[in-house]
């Protein structure tokens, strides 16, 4: 899985969860950039990402994720 593929799939998940076809996530995207991304939606987002990639992100990693780039890092690492 390349980084581009990860971002493509993440983008699909973000669009579904926030029901917004215009969302384009990048390395630096954070909760501040997406209007509905609050702590509650964050939970749903993580669950949706886990479902998309079919693995669970360990607790320690969810806590330290700062932006979508770091989310992609974790996914690539877990997907090895």
């Amino acid at each position, binding site marked *: 899985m390349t980084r581009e593929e990860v971002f493509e799939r993440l983008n699909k*998940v973000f669009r*579904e969860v926030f*029901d917004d076809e215009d969302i384009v996530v990048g390395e630096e995207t954070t909760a501040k950039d997406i209007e509905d991304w609050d702590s509650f939606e964050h939970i*749903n987002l993580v669950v949706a990402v886990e479902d998309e990639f079919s693995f669970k992100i360990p607790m320690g990693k969810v806590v330290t994720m700062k932006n979508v780039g770091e989310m992609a890092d974790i996914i690539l690492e877990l997907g090895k």
Partner: protein
Amino acid sequence: MKELEYPFVPEDLLKRKKNIRKQLLADTSANYIDKKIAILGGSTTNTIRQMLELFLLNYGIRPSFYESEYNQYYEDGMFPNPQLEAFAPDLIYICTGNRNISAWPHLSDSRERIEQKLQQTMEKFRGLWERLAHTYHCPIIQNNFEYPFFRLLGNKDASDMHGRVNFITTLNCRFYEYSQTQENFYICDINYLSASYGLEKWSDPYYWHMYKYAVAVPAIPFLAFNIANIIKSIYGKNKKAFNLDLDNTLWGGIVGEDGAENIEIGQETPLAQTYSEFQEYLKLHKQLGILLTINSKNDEANAISGLSRPDSVLHPEDFVNIKANWEPKSMNLVKTAREMALLPESFVFVDDNPAERAIIAEQVKWAAVPEINGVEHYIQVIDRSGFFEVTSLSQDDLKRTEMYRENAERSRLQASFENYEDYLKSLEMKGEIREFIPAYMSRIAQLTNKSNQFNLTTKRYSQSEIEAIARDPEHVALYGRLCDKFGDNGVVSIVIGRIDGRMGEELHMELWLMSCRVLKRRMEYAMMDELVKKAQSIGIQKIIGYYYPTAKNAMVRDFYELMGFTRISEDEEGNTVWEFVIPNEYIEKQQVIELIRSQ
């Protein structure tokens, strides 16, 4: 919406909830009732609320929510709460679980000490329930407790009084004892739900420590669906009847080709046993007042021969309506509904053939069409769907099949009379029309939530509202019960009027409804006669009637005209207002029902 019917895909609902919500709200044909629901949570409840909203919308209930802050269920409910009081909930859901138990048994505890701890937890909840009931007068739904996710004592945790499994089992029983004494209190059985889902996954501590969800997020759609089923049942949106296919649904094989002697039913083969178990499951529903009907592409003689096998669990007399013919099944279903004075949407259509299911789903909107697949799983899919979720069991429910059989006898009798008036007289009808009495409050509230067709205002009432009206001197409220020589129809009509006008000389009809099971029996005229009599006795001069059209109540559009009212206004939506000035010499409108007079 198919996505929200069992078996739904929980991940899909969680991911696409915003889009699904948008689609539901865009459906203008839905005739929503609005309900205010307070969620008092002992954990995070955000996703529970979001999922509950979807399932309720799918049931035609449009909720608005009050949601307590994280773990504030007790404080929010127990202490003065202006925000919740202003919200005035129609229903309160207390979402707690074993994470909210603080006083667990210790291994060194004596029996007395453990009993104390049980009482301490029980009294905390009982205090909350009583306070809520007293302050908000609305139905309360309370989670029981799921089993703990670890067992210090291993298997002994279940049997030893020091075990948490044992403690929870006892607590749950005390919750049930409380609920058995209350009319408006319902247990949401997360103990069963978590077992069915898998306790291991349900109680995954990850979601608690990360987000303070006591229920794993992927399990939340199942919890929300379960709550929605209780709520829709409270508001009278349960299904009422099964519409059943025969070949490969009630038995294995095709009776028209294989012959009744060769179909799979009885105890001879595993497949036959499985079909028998399914028939037994259906037959059990008769106890709940759920009606069984047949909708089969078969010659009637073949259909009957299959059901007449001595080893068949269900026999022809178990069904209130049998359609075995070559008509489209959608037509059969609509016709069956009409003959039974029910709406097609009150039926659960069970057919092994996906093509037939697709046609019904397309043609008969809102009828339930469970996706059954493989006879060994029929029961599971139907049972988990919660079509008939029981929240109250009235005497009426228990004898409904009997009532429909009596109706069939009435129809036969009617055919023997040329003059309808003679037929009505031959029924020897007796009516009881009185002010509300305690024994009927539950049935009266149930009727206001269930009646759609013969209902002038379609106003819904909770039992506590009905009780308040019965006490209020500003209201005139009558129920009507009708019996005849074939049996007792129970309480079938309700009228509620509010006294108004400068001198209290006007009666404004907030509700007028009648059960369709007594259509064309003159019961509506009897209600009018008694209402007028009651109104006269308290100095009312004028009765004002209101008709608010809905998708279902066209049959009463001209009802007030029929009763001798004059139309005084109509707006663009077709809402009409009617007036009846009570004459000095009121002539009673019916003579076929003998009345037991109101006191």
